[in-house]
């Protein structure tokens, strides 16, 4: 039994390292500083001229930060409502709704965004549409993380602060924030990683393949790293394009891992202290 389990587990335990090594190995031919910061147009693909990856990186990061800026106040107010005003029944309902929303596939949100934002509101394929869609996608995650962070604060502390006559605002700023900021930050970082890795919902609502270094307004399309990989991956017979795709994957992976590993580190740090 033991040996059978070990035998089954070995592939699962070795896979992550194998994946990472393979991705980096494939990316090596294309991975250099010029690819990211080079200013000249690099010819990739038979019929496509792409710029260096810098514009894609900045597009992805821009969309991610706008999405987080939109989602943060909403998530914070949901969590505060949950903490201060909701009755027991409402709390249960709220968490169950958040879980259901979290389970709905991102592409469904993308589809709705395409209908409502791009077509009905005439925003066109735009940065704003992508940011709003991404913010709705990360909202349940961010809100439930914030709720959990608030729930981990000992109830006695909140109650004694309130009975000392502190107002709700000062409970938030004086009692909760100094104590729970690592868990808030963890939630935020995880949602950032999530927003960076979503591809399908922004494919037809926010991004174009190339030609844009920095969007002129929030109603103009952007280029993003995720969709760049998708377009390049389908560039069938072109060796250079595929290597660039792998290199973009490495860049994207690095960005995502920076966020999620910092979140993990913070979580561990919080557990120890």
């Amino acid at each position, binding site marked *: 039994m033991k040996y059978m389990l070990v035998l089954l587990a070995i592939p699962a335990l070795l896979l*992550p390292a194998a994946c990472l090594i393979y991705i980096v190995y494939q990316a090596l031919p294309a991975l250099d500083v010029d690819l990211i910061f080079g200013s000249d147009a690099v010819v990739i693909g038979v019929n496509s001229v792409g710029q260096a990856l810098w514009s894609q990186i900045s597009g992805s990061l821009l969309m991610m930060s706008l999405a987080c800026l939109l989602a943060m106040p909403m998530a914070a107010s949901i969590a505060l409502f949950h903490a201060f005003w909701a009755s027991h029944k409402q709390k249960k309902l709220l968490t169950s709704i958040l879980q259901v929303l979290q389970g709905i596939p991102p592409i469904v949100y993308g589809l709705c965004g*395409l209908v409502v934002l791009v*077509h009905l509101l005439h925003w066109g394929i735009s940065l704003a549409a992508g940011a709003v869609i991404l913010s709705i996608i990360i909202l349940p995650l961010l809100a439930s993380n914030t709720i959990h962070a608030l729930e981990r604060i000992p109830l006695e502390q909140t109650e004694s602060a309130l009975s000392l006559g502190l107002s709700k605002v000062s409970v938030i700023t004086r009692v909760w924030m100094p104590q729970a900021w690592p868990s808030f930050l963890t939630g935020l970082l995880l949602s950032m990683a999530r927003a960076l890795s979503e591809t399908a919902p922004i494919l037809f609502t926010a991004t174009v393949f190339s030609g844009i270094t920095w969007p002129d307004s929030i109603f103009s399309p952007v280029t993003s790293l995720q969709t760049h990989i998708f377009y390049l991956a389908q560039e069938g017979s072109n060796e250079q394009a595929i290597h660039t795709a792998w290199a973009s994957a490495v860049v994207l992976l690095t960005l995502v891992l920076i966020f999620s590993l910092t979140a993990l580190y913070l979580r561990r740090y919080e557990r120890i202290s």
Partner: protein
Amino acid sequence: MNKQRLLLPIVLLGCIAALLGGLSLFWFLTSNAWNFFQSFGISALWQTEWYPYEDLYGFLPAILGTLWALCIAMLVAIPCGLAAAIVSSELLPNTWQSIARLSMEILAGIPSVVYGLIGLWVLLPFLQEHLNLLTGHSLLAAGLILSLMILPTIMLMAQDALDSVSQEQREAALNLGLDWNQLLIRILLPQAWPGIRSGLLLALGRGLGETMAVMLVVGSLDRIPQPFYNILEPAQTLTSRIGREMGEAAFGSMHFAALITCGLVLAVFATIISLSAQRKGSIA
């Protein structure tokens, strides 16, 4: 005092904005799907032909494809994931355990489009060569790449559940003379089952909604495999259909309404999965 009074309105405003977002989403899904069902009837759900240019919209191929891909993914990922969780939480020393955890968390963080890249340029050539397929695009490929994606979810949740079984229980069981197999089957797995179960359902939900990776490897052929258990043929899943045709369907056309109905079907499946995860979880 002023700040005091502002807090409630601000909080309510944020909640109402979130609520409006959710409700309008639901409303757009159902109203468009309602239009679709009014013209084509509910029977479209189990008809087998999907040719948008001839106004034939049958959902069965995509639904069947989704189910097959999920079945394959779960069949591969459950044994591997559970075994990895058991091995790393019960057999490995602490250092290796945290390394295994970290690597699984990294695997969980890889964006889906990168998995698609792996599937397209590693898995497909492999399948093509070893199974004598035309291109390798197949339900099997989709299932395998999905299993890779849901493996970390299953393993991490199972490991958390196993770790939360208290050490005394293990020692008591060993003192009673149970061997390792009995300890595992009689003590550890039953106690960890609620956690493992919600991990499995979470993984199922993730696999259901995955778009990019599946879309790149499944082949996007709107046909029921012949015979229906032939998983080596290219097929279509609900998500890959939406992803492929979202860009080309004209806004306002029946085709677009049909795609939104696909989205509604997906959302209903996902809701059922997450509700069942909550219901049973609270009893156990």
